[in-house]
């Protein structure tokens, strides 16, 4: 139960820099999710907090105490691994009790802690089984139970759902959310590459990319006001469409002339100096609607239709761009294939990026 502060933290393996300038202030009771593409260093950062990797530069403090040189076991953290990392030769009970036995807690105390965690995680009937006699979801619950019994200040989760199948992943995600509800004071750090997990679980998301933090914010902040093109395209699925253009009118509202010739209004204030500036206009597939009006963002022929029932995805080819233009329309529109469609969006839902950074933040 504690604050966790990272100040200018960096990690390098010899000359290879993996992470740098990581500044993060995690408050007690938050569930922070590290998300990012593979190789962005999110697991490394988690392992640095855990004490399994050394910290090259900067400081890590938990509850005001600098933890850089404190051994992993004394940092007051518990970690849940992707591969569960259960001790295969021990029963569920012994797996959960191991840390307490090492800490020389009394038998009664250990039994009470294990029973309580087992009850919370619905593992009571399995306490005397070996891990190999459990399903994947049960194993992951044991791993979580092993963390709970230690009553740590900070819980660390390293892609805990990645080894589960799709249905179990959804169920276990809900269980973790409920667990967090039951322990509102505990601080959790959760690493995933799955943005659904990030969006549903996090109180705040940390997007990591290119060896640093891209943006920190609540899930909806990241969705509605991405700071840069990377976050804009990383959060949300399918990814946000980006169209090159040029600012032709400034003020409380900005008008952008797109490469295709159409002019688009964006509810983003700009200064006079921005006149003529090259920008990228971002619009999410779900914010696009078909229109008959002259005011539009894009017009083209539908190449592929993906009808998912609940929504329909339309793919358009774009001149000079590898990525297709994508629109996500509610309901079923299977008849749109090969048809010419004109798309428009609410000016409030449009994003503008100059040199990769959002014009909202400057």
């Amino acid at each position, binding site marked *: 139960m504690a604050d966790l502060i990272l100040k200018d933290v960096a990690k390098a393996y010899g000359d290879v820099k993996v992470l740098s300038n990581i500044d993060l202030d995690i408050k007690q009771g938050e569930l922070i999710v590290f998300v990012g593409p593979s190789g962005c260093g999110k697991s490394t950062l988690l392992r640095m907090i*855990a004490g399994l990797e050394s910290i090259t530069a900067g400081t890590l403090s938990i509850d005001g105490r600098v933890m850089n040189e404190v051994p992993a*076991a004394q940092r007051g953290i518990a970690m849940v691994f992707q*591969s569960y990392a*259960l*001790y295969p*030769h021990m029963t569920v009970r012994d797996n959960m009790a*191991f840390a307490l036995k*090492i800490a020389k807690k009394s038998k009664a105390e250990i039994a009470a802690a294990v029973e309580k965690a087992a009850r919370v995680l619905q593992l009571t009937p399995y306490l005397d089984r070996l891990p190999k006699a459990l399903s994947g979801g049960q194993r992951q619950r044991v791993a979580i139970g*092993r963390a709970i019994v230690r009553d740590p200040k900070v819980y660390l989760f390293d892609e805990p759902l990645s080894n589960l199948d799709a249905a179990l992943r959804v169920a276990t995600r809900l269980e973790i959310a409920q667990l967090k509800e039951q322990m509102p004071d505990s601080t959790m750090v959760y690493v995933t590459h799955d943005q659904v997990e990030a969006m549903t679980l996090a109180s705040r998301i940390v997007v990591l990319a290119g060896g640093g933090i891209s943006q920190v914010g609540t899930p909806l902040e990241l969705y509605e006001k991405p700071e840069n093109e990377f976050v804009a395209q990383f959060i949300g699925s399918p990814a946000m469409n980006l169209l090159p253009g040029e600012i032709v009118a400034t003020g409380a509202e900005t008008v952008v002339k797109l490469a295709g010739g159409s002019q688009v209004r964006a509810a983003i204030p700009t200064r006079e100096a921005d006149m003529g500036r090259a920008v990228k206009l971002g619009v999410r597939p779900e914010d696009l609607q078909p229109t008959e009006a002259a005011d539009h963002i894009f017009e083209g022929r539908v190449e592929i239709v993906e009808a998912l029932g609940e929504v329909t995805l339309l793919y358009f080819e774009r001149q000079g761009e590898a990525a297709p233009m994508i629109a996500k329309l509610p309901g079923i529109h299977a008849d749109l294939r090969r048809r010419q469609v004109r798309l428009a969006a609410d000016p409030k839902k449009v994003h503008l990026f100059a040199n990769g950074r959002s014009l909202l933040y400057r």
Partner: protein
Amino acid sequence: MLQQLVTAGLTIVVGIAAAFGYFYGSNWLLDILFPAGAAGDRATRNIRRAAAIRPWLFLGPALLALALYLVYPVAESIWLSFHGPAGRQFVGLKNYIWFIGDANIHSALINNFLWLLVVPAASTFLGLVTAALTDRIGWGNIAKSLIFMPMAISFVGATVIWKFVYDYRAANQDQIGLLNALVTWLGGPPEAWITLPFWNNFFLMVILVWIQTGFAMVILSAALRGIPEETIEAAVLDGANGLQIFFKIMVPQIWGTIAVVWTTITITVLKVFDIVYAMTNGQWDTDVLANQMYTWMFEGGGDFGRGATIALVIMILVIPIMIWNIRNAKAEMEGR
């Protein structure tokens, strides 16, 4: 010398050529007898028949060799054990009664028991410790090669080496034995180590431990590397120290392999003969069953009956360990 080398080389070439010839030729014959190119139903029948016969054809030579060199000797040993010294006169259980009552055999049995107690335990333990330690240091691979090297030395060769370690010269002479040189340098009197009753057994055992530690180390090192890294990291986070991680997390995960190594060495120990034969030939109360067997079988005119009886007892002692060993190894291979 050169002629022997040439003969050996020639034997290898001819042997391998013959093996190839056999497999190729028998396969060719099978194809002629059951042509796969025959019409319709006959083709499938031929292929099925050939497939049923082929394994036996290929296994044939090995089965024959096993029968000739394993099954026949066992049968012959059983037959001999009920017969007199020359193997002609039927004596019933007389050899077995002698075995149960003979003082030398008792002494050899006790020594064998000591060997069984000490050597597998010591070799496995040292192998485990060296495996764990050499995995952690930079020059671990060099250390491993050095520890493994005695495995490449024959038992007799190893014994000769250790004879120089235990060598004894009278107190007024220069000691050429390593151990006595050390003892006299420290100010003690030189000892004839291999004649010291009871303890000399352990001096002989050291040789086998020296040889087998390398074997244990190599197998256990591979097993240790197979332990998932995360379980060790989890134990680190759970607050376990190095020793606790080793004994409570790592060793339990490789119990199966430890059992295989232990039993394999146990079987070697039951058969140990060369070391005792070359070092003391059973003098000074160091005899073991296998050496007794050799002595009775081939020395002083030979008593085939008694020699065969001892051989059978050794075999009976080995069988249960062998079965357990194979089971463990199988379980290990199937991932428990």
